[in-house]
């Protein structure tokens, strides 16, 4: 049986998403733990879409990767989960790979289980640690517990908590190969994307994240946090309450059922610190909480707790940073 590992690239048709590189790093950890059976295998990247030339070049730079398999087809201009899963299952079908991994993003979380079921395999979600080539640690119950789980089958299909792995370096030089498109079992019709464009860094890979909660009171007040984020070179996030109230769009949500972030600095403003929110940010290096409730649970995980009205504290902080 092959010990090669397949990483599924995530991209938007123009650029490779950085989470792919963290996933390559997780693949590297699995490769390092493969025992016997001809030793460590190779790491390949599968790239599915249309007009992939530039993205394939970015993939080829991922350190430790030897081959990029490109399925470039006009009908995959906006690939659905079905489309990508069919390519994964075709690539894995012949026993060519021991593992397939994708980032635990909305992309990876949709395609990996789909591909696993096509292959009659049980996937393992959101791994944050590789213990053995077949054994992984992952958060359950909103991160209230960590489960060590061993796969009893092959190939093993996984999604990877990208914040738990340092991205692979970009000094590689992998070969790029075209692969034939496999026919998906069924197709869906893409209509449109409504994506908010922002010059700020992407939330899940930003070094600084400034998040607001219900305490912000409305969407306009988020301008304060945007200004602060821009001063710090960071991204803006939010609690579920702030998203549900319509202050900011859904893609800002940090938490158990939103995005997982682990920046150097996480600033929680007017956020109480519900367990579901903590699930998405408690691995941040340094947490600062601004809240006017002495008892707010967020203070129990914050490195620096500032009990103050946010409408006083945030402008004061901005002023101090601009000094």
């Amino acid at each position: 049986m092959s010990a090669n590992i397949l990483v599924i690239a995530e991209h938007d048709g123009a650029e490779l998403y950085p989470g792919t590189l963290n996933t390559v790093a997780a693949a590297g950890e699995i490769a390092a733990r493969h025992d016997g059976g001809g030793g460590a295998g190779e790491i390949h990247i599968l790239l599915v879409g249309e007009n992939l030339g530039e993205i394939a070049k970015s993939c080829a730079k991922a350190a430790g990767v030897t081959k990029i398999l490109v399925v470039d087809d006009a009908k995959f201009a906006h690939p659905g989960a079905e489309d990508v899963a069919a390519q994964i299952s075709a690539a894995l079908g012949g026993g060519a790979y021991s593992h397939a991994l994708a980032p635990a993003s909305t992309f990876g979380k949709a395609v990996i289980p789909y591909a696993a079921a096509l292959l009659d395999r049980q996937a393992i979600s959101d791994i944050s640690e590789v213990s053995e080539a077949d054994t992984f640690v992952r958060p359950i119950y909103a991160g209230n517990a960590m489960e060590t789980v061993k796969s009893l089958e092959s190939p093993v299909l996984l999604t990877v908590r990208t914040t738990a792995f340092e991205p692979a370096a970009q000094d590689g030089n992998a070969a790029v190969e075209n692969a034939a498109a496999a026919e998906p079992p069924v197709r869906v019709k893409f209509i449109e994307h409504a994506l908010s464009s922002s010059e700020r860094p992407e939330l899940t890979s930003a070094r600084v994240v400034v998040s607001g909660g219900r305490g912000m009171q409305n969407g306009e007040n988020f301008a304060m946090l945007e200004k602060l984020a821009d001063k710090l070179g960071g991204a803006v996030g939010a609690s579920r309450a702030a998203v549900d109230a319509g202050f900011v769009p859904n893609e800002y949500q940090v938490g158990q059922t939103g995005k997982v972030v682990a920046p150097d600095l996480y600033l929680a403003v007017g956020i109480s610190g519900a367990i579901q929110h903590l699930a998405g940010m408690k691995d941040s290096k340094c947490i600062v909480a601004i809240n006017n409730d002495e008892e707010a649970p967020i203070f129990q995980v914050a490195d620096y707790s500032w009990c103050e009205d946010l409408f006083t504290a945030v402008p004061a902080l901005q002023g101090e940073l601009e000094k």
Partner: protein
Amino acid sequence: MKILVPVKRVIDANIRVRVKSDNSGVETANVKMAMNPFCEIAVEEALRIKEAGDAEEVILFSAGGEKTPETIRTGLAMGADRGVHVQTDERLEPLTIAKMIAAVAEKEGADLVILGKQSIDGDNNQTGQMLAAIMKRPLGSYISEIKKNAEGFAITREIDAGLEKLQIGSPAVVTTDLRLNEPRYASLPNIMKAKKKPIETLSPADVGVEIKARTEVLKVAEPPAREAGVRVSGAGELVDKLKNEAKVIS
């Protein structure tokens, strides 16, 4: 149109779960259980589609031990018509559950299966995707909107970059995100009515699914604890600490 909604019994979202001292799992004895919040959203959406006149029947499904019918009953009290319970005390992995749901959806002739995108216990986020693959039906995952139309369903998905609109055919499988709707509370008369609604009990063999472990849980442990830090009382002090103590800004 018939809608099938699989629902799961989980520890209530407001309960702080505790890891068992022997690291075999989390404490579930004498812990308040509830319907998984995403499944509630799925039931609510099915009921709204029925109330809009686009569906005739909403059927609930759940697999699990002897208390599982209580959770089905919760959905019946919200307004669903009847339930199917696959009774088993074995550990169920998403692929096994997806196979059971597929068998029931096939048997019932369900045109639409609405599932929660994840359950808040295992946080797997897999069953709906697997079901779509097994049934070879179009998938709409993480939806915040669904409208029936001539070609099937127009859906909006919440994705990491924003929103995505898709047209999917029918029959279909969709999974719910948080902002699809706000689930109703069951009224007292409906709770009473639900007691008389039928729940069919089946065995895994009845739905043709063999339960086979594909993964093994070796250990469940506490996450690394995060210590509370220090209080600051002004912007100057905070910036100083971030620069010189934590060294996260320059």
